[in-house]
């Protein structure tokens, strides 16, 4: 008995789920704008934090190893 369904019939899931699915979204219909937004914010955060850590927190805390 296969444990992966070969068709995506909308089963409102049973055990442990709050409200369940209200609609199906196919591969072609799905545009992950939300993911782009979240990841974009993360990208900016990473660049800013890295630059802050590197040029402020690290570079200004002399002495350093110079060679």
């Amino acid at each position, binding site marked *: 008995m296969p444990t992966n369904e070969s068709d995506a019939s909308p089963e409102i899931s049973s055990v442990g789920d709050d409200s369940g699915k209200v609609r199906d979204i196919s*591969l072609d219909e799905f*545009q*992950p*704008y939300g*993911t*782009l937004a979240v*990841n*974009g914010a993360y*990208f900016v955060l*990473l*660049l800013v934090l*890295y*630059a802050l850590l*590197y040029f402020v927190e*690290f*570079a200004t*805390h*002399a*002495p*350093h*190893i*110079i*060679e």
Partner: protein
Amino acid sequence: MHVHRFEKLWIGLSLLLIAAFIGIVLFGFTVMNLKVPGVETGETVDPATVLSEGPFAQPGVRKVSDNHYEVYMLAQQFLFRPGSTQPLTLPAETKVTFHMTSPDVMHGFEVPGSGLNATVIPGQIATFSTRFPEAKTYGIICHQYCGSAHHNMQGEIEVVPPSEFDESNLISQ
């Protein structure tokens, strides 16, 4: 193979991010002179004899030239020599090269809140140079677990203005 255009965009951004990080590090390494401990000519020493033969038999500060001093320092269970029983005194605004090894187990050398950081490994010589920008007292902590009194292993570096640096106590070559 289906790769959504957003995911392609994200992969492009990720590669940019990686390149930016590499660029920042290399810029810091070369232009800003922010480096890591090196290897002293690939030399190794014998931990069994390092206390009695060679430069580590007389740990301390030596003068290399005007404006360049070097310290042969031992890290051992559970003190820095020099540095623990008495502060290590060094001049500010002057190049200082540290050479460190251990006769017993691995130790660490850390000046908290700075970029001075090295692993001290028996048989190897950890080499790094620095320049203390101002007269100040710095702590040294052993941050590589070295045994039961590891948490008691500490030292002090007293950096003094170059004019006040007493050269009479230096180890002569």
